[in-house]
């Protein structure tokens, strides 16, 4: 599966990146392709391109604050979760994508 994701936590110092790392690790393990955009204290990094979003099967928004440029995912299949959930149970989050 091709997945795009965004992580964003309140201070944007640590949890945003931990969640990104966890999602990437779990996706690799489960054999998915993933690209994670981080919205942290340094602004948006590893920004998702329109084509990447378009080609993805689904999107994960792991955020404790409002996701910037959320309209990019309009019409996409979205799984929303908290940053903490993505850190603690990344595989469970990915498994939710598999469910219809």
């Amino acid at each position, binding site marked *: 599966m091709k997945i795009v994701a965004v992580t964003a936590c*309140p*201070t944007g*110092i640590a949890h*945003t990146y931990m969640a*990104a790392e966890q999602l990437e690790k779990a996706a690799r393990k489960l054999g998915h392709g993933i690209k994670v955009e981080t919205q942290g204290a340094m602004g948006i990094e590893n920004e998702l391109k329109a084509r990447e979003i378009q080609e993805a099967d689904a999107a994960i928004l792991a955020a404790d604050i409002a996701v910037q440029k959320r309209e990019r995912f309009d019409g996409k299949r979205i799984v929303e979760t908290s940053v903490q959930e993505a850190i603690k149970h990344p595989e469970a989050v990915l498994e939710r994508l598999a469910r219809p």
Partner: protein
Amino acid sequence: MTRVPFTFPLANGLHARPASLLQELCLRFDAVVVFRNSRRGRRADAGSVLELVSSGTMAGDPCLLEVSGPQEKEAAQALRAFLRRDLLQAEDNLPPSAAPGAGEGGWLPPFFRGGALRLHHGRAVSPGIGRAIAVLRQGRVSMPRRFASGRKGPAQESRLFREAMERTMAELRGQAEASGDPVAAGILKAHLAILSDPRFGGKIASRIAAGRLPAGAAIEKTAAEFAAAMRRSPSVYLRERAADIDDIAARLGETLYGKRRDAAPDLPPGGCIVVAGALSPSELLSLDRRPLRGLVLGEIGSTSHTAILARTLGIPAVALPRPALAGIAAGEELVVDGRRGLVLEQPGPALRRYYRLEQEHLRRLEQRRARLAAQPARTRDNVRLEVAANIGSVAELDPAWRSGAEGIGLFRSEALFLERDGPPGEDEQCEAYSRVARTAAGRPVIVRTLDVGGDKRLPYLRLMREENPFLGYRAVRFYEEHGDLLRCQLRAILRAARCGRLKVMVPMVTRTEEVRLVRRLLADAAAELRDRGVPHADSVELGVMVETPAAALSIDLLAREAGFFSIGSNDLLQYTMAADRGNPRLAGLHDPLHPAFLRLLQQAAAQARKAGRWLGLCGEMAGNSELLPLLVGIGFNEVSMAPGRIPAAKERLAELESGECRALLRRVLAAADATTAAGLLGEFNARGEAGEAISAELVRLDSPCRTPGEAIKELCCLLELSGRVGNSAALEDAVWKREEAYATDLGFGFSLPHGKAAAVKSASIAFLRSRKPFHWSPAGTPVQAVLLIAVPEKAQGEEHLRLIARLSRRLMHEEFRAALLAARDAAAVLRALQQCLGGG
């Protein structure tokens, strides 16, 4: 009549200390001086401290002095000089108020909640932590009722009042001399000035003499009038001065009625916290300070003299609203938290542990401060720049040495000569210089020879009045005519030089002949001492104070006669810019960043270096830490400043790198104007230290902490002790606010608390491992390793943020966590972290 207009310069308004200086000066002349504040439409007799203070004058008010009478000219001239110099220094040595930033707005970390029987939010008045039992002290809010009832007729009451005045003044004088602390002495002297104010005493006396009121009632009524005038002032600072009037009146009344103040109840020797609704400065001074651990006060301003004294004496203090104060019972255990502005009644075991940690931390901070003060001042790349103190009297020596002065770069000897009918004798001067030399214990002391004439006049030195005193017959220019006076001073210095490293510096030099003259006088003085058989040093080093462009441009020539140079930047700037620095309309011209002035300094330094001469800088510019990078770039050997500025200068210096400073200087010298130069300098100063985010001193293994509160506190304290965070309590609060959003434990025995705070100077990481795992959050698993991340409020440079992001990601990998958990020492932790931070 002569009019002297000026803009009032002091941030705290015209309060008792500057007012007493102004009054003192006015009373020295046979002249009437009227003070007018045109913004507030107030008029005051400048001979009256009380009237001056009651004028409610604030910083920036347009003011006018009207001088008339037989000595009109002299008085006006002295006043102009006063406004230009002494007035500006009236606020220099105030200790800083309690650090703001923590505990504001009533928010506290969660472990405070329910941790004490009662917890009161107040205002931090003096920093520090006090923990002891409460001793309640009846505040003397008003005068005893019986003051109102007279005992004798008007004649007898008048006599009693006069005697009480004299006794009280003598007492104050004695206390001021014995206090051994310049701040305490200054406050007592300000009280003395109010007491000796003719408006005050005169009004009381006339009320008694008219038979209308007995002495006690007359004191009470007069004091109440003056205090009320102050309470109406627009300035908080001045309103707080009303307490001084109350204090003086009560003191006077007590002396009058022969009643010793019910002062000094014996404080329990095991330590106590004094709780008092009102505590006057003299009451505070009369308390036994050994068992005193803290103060809980009623309505008191942070600039009241009691507050200033508490800070000077290092007593933690918090001001509480009256209802909270009234609820405190004698004998119960209190914590006074002068950092957060809290008073805790009967703290529970967790908060006791927390405050023990805090006290231990403050002790370490103090040790660090003392260590910094004791350290030789040098840049990061080990370039030495002596940091010395400017002093005007022997009384300022102690604070100078305590703050870490590496010498006295300027001892203004004229204080010994002012305010007297004849010059001080050789023995008296020798005594003063010897004391300075002895306490210096080997550190160099530069004594500036007599610098009067023009602005500072001595009645016994008959100098002609001049149109333009700053361009006139002053300092070295009258040495030839008054050779006796100078030889006497030089003899005293030569004698005292046996006690230490005294050097002589000549002010206002423009020509080599002048230095030669002083050299001749010095030789004569030595010969006289030899003839008299008086022991003295064979020679002292002779230097030049560079205050005129002429001197600055001929250092190479002067170097033939002078062994060292020190730039007097205040006058040099004034003469270079042809702008009187006391004239508010010319304030913009008085800018040390003007290209001409910086070039002049740089050329002077280059000439001094070429001639192999030592070069110092004394004057306001030296004490401005913002300018320090330029001074390092220019290559001074020494900077000499007001003692209070020394620790900051040493700390800033240790952050600078001399090569970067030189590069900055080159850019600043190439700037088209002072504004561009200021921009370049500001940019340089704003740049955070580009050091590592973590170092060995930020790692603590085997920590005894048992709660998240203790772990976070310990890590914040490590950061403050390393100088990376200004106020650890502010960072602690920021971290706890973040924890409230959700706990930062990650599972796997790790927790990653973090916060952004203005108190953080550069993004940093601190690490601890506890002896035993403990619970971080109710739902979480036990935690043993804590990584705390501190980021500045305005995170400059994304490099550090990037490192932290990388670290956060790496923590998700088990090998990394295992390495941190298994690390045998701090070095192993550092290796693991640096590998993670450094490796792409």
